[in-house]
């Protein structure tokens, strides 16, 4: 049995990292949720207050997803359970939509860097968008972070 597992694992490794040919760079955007480096409750008080105001700007409750802002190209939502903001971009130009969405947040008095820990994630809704925006980042501009690691 142990031998079998070893063999299976050997296949797994090969399947994930084919060694027969070099892996090409992905030319398609990868959606991620980047967890905040600090918890929302650890945010500075003024940011906490603004965060509350942002959430309070709700315009609809879609089965638990709090819709905050909506345009033809993107929507901004607050998702209570994971406690994060999500911008779903539905149409190109995605980068322009991302900038507009960030502006929306900044208009509450936040600074660009505050978006990193709010946290805000940018998701490309359609497969085609991910192909046309291969370098698109789920992080707000100027932010760095690592995707969720497997426990």
């Amino acid at each position: 049995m142990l031998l079998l597992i070893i063999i299976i694992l050997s296949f797994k490794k090969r399947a994930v990292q084919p060694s027969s040919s070099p892996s090409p760079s992905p030319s398609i955007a990868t959606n991620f949720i980047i967890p905040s480096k600090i918890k929302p409750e650890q945010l500075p008080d003024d940011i906490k207050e603004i965060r509350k105001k942002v959430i309070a700007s709700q315009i609809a409750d879609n089965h638990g997803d709090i819709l905050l802002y909506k345009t033809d190209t993107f929507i901004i939502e607050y998702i209570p359970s994971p406690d994060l903001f999500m911008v779903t971009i539905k149409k190109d130009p995605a980068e322009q939509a991302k900038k507009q969405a960030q502006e929306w947040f900044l208009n509450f008095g936040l600074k660009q860097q505050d978006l990193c820990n709010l946290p805000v994630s940018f998701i490309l809704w359609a497969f085609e968008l991910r192909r046309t925006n291969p370098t698109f980042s789920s992080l707000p501009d100027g932010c760095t972070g690592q995707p969720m690691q497997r426990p």
Partner: protein
Amino acid sequence: MEKITVHPSKSGQTRQSKSALINSIACPSKLLRSWVNRQSPVLRSASVVGLLAILLILLFSLFTLTYLAAPAFAAPGDPPNPQPCENARETEQLTDNWMTHPGTSDPPQGLKFTLLRVGKEGDPVSLDADLNFSVDFSKLQSIFGATNSDYLEGEFHDEEHRKANIMDLKSTDFNLFHGSGQKAAPKVMLDKLRTKYVKYVWENPKLAESGNEFSDINGKSPKTIWALVNDYGQPNPPTEGGNADTWNQTWGKYWPKIPTAYSEYYEGKIIFKEAIGQDAIVKTIKGEICPFNLDRIITFIMPEFFRTTAVTGQLNKILVPNAAQSKDANNLIKLTNNDTGKSLVGNIIQKCINAFNKTPLNKVLQKITKTTSNLLNPIKTVYAQEAPCLKVLAGGKQGTAPYCPLPTGQLQPGDSCDGQNVVCNFKIHWEHPNNPLHIGTKDNPGDFDSCREPDPDTDEITCYLTIAIWPVFRIPFLSEIWNNSLYSDEAEGGLNRGIGSDQVTGRPGLFSFFTPQAIYSKLFPTNYDRALDLLSRCYPQWPDQTTGEQSACDQLNTIGGIIPCAIQDDIKLVARCVSGKIGKNLPGQVGTDPNYKERFGGATECNKLYVRDLALKPKALQENSVIGEDGCNLLANAPPGSGEPPGGGTTPPNQDNCQGKYELNNPLGNFGDPNCDFSKDKLHRLLKTLDPLYADYWYGRIIVCESGFNPNNWLTGDPNADWHSPDPAGAWGLLQMGRGKNGQYDHGDVVWKRPEAPSMEGQVYNAVQYNKWLISLGMPFAYWSTSWLPCAAATM
């Protein structure tokens, strides 16, 4: 269209690798064949050493697989050797039973406490506490009343029952001999249950009942199941193709004594839910937030689980209609008569599950819970050591039922038990998850509930924080079943209405008492035979109306005697008239005895599902049931083509784009969110319930990458397409799974979750189940980690 820079075949190959890998696990022969044909990309990249090793394994397995597959502790066919506590089984189907202080929604005494810390404003302080929690495991059995299976099948496990002489039973006693489930169940179903019972007991000689002896229908020649199998082989009743003559001379003589459900012990869990701060406690009780779990989990053995019922679990899983059940977490729905109309648990469910008040069956629920809510009290009071409420279960086996001590390995430093591990005291260490906290001020207590004014001498501030911890007994539920009377109470059908079937009355169909041919004619005379028998025994000297056997006259009187039949000299003519007065109620339609409304069917696992589905569920619902082919194959007798994938496959797709939310550019239309009830919030909550450990990983890495939270996402399987799934059936849904190529859980082509069974079926459930299988192979998330390149990188 912009040309992609990743070579399509590479993507396809990588996807193909996933599929081939999975297939290789499930079916090594395919892998070998691929190797011979030099077709498999996996094998092309596999080492020669690996292939040789596989061949060696295959050869090796020919000689050893039999021994490996058979658990060493329960060799099939061994003589009976009952050791149930040492062989308890584990199930994921657990029903949460919250412990509260009697009469309140607060935790039990001692588990709601206030901590204080003293310091200057902003000083870091840590909050932790050690709590004690005692359980008398010998009392666990007291939460089981009269056994569920006794209701179902009669007291088949009792010695008196096993040794009874059925042939001498009077009709009323015979009526009691079988439980309501047997009366309501088709014979073919009972035969299958009994056949499986025999097989299971024979294969598991350490079951508690493996040593039970059953006499034949005359009360003679008692034998164990093991002895019966040795003498007669595995049973093959006529309903399953066996020879009737042979049958009647062998198993047939014992068949009515064979139970339909075995007794097997299962593991239960004690977990602890915490609410930190007065605000959180109030919100928890109001059902505005879901409390988190502490790390400590205590595993214990549920005594007599297989044939007994956790009363609270019954309420949730048996009496409560499926649409109203708290399926997300299997919590208990419970109502009380307090001001709010809802208990702690009911409130919590409203928040955590959000299903309760959305059901149209609310009134039915209230009716049911009023009549049965007192059954809940023992849960609270047993562990609060308030014995009087145990009287509720006076008809049960408390005081006599067996119990198991705490399993080894459950004690941690600070815990203690009596010498026999029956009465145990657990030390529960609690610490604030955000330690260190900081001392606040009276105006801004910060992490605390409240703070006082600074001490004028020391300038120190005292801050207070209240914590509540609810112990939750997670008990395997015994029977997820519809109660006949409840089910018939309201018309079904439509979205968010019950189970979506058309049934509006009790389950129709033909029913039979379990009736071996050996005694069929004796037990099932025609109405004319019965009338003639009653008349002959009541009036043995007819036409002289001097009475004879009083019991016969009593039975005759229950149908009004011979009135209005004409009195004729020929008793046969009178009997022909009287026969028309004998009731025609089918067992499944009996509704005058209130006890029937409290009776439940089912045992556990396969039997449970089988009994539930076949006896009490309409066919449409049966077809939704997830029954493994190796277990009780519910679909065996269903029309060809009626089999559906397990993960919500019978919720049909539609063309509703949910107000423009979805572009339905796939062959099915809106398959993933046909009810337009998907949300990312609900998805996260569902993941937290189904797979707490990996919930955030699923959410933040896998799903978002695979589908961008689109339950209707679809990737073609057309190999000529630039981007395509290696599975010709395509990649579907949130998790981009297939259409069954790699087994029953490889289904993404289903609803993201079924609203009436939110935690059990759907895309998310399928993926979690599939991954659990991969975890068991030491390959967590292999299905997705070998996915197309961007997400493969995501899951590395």
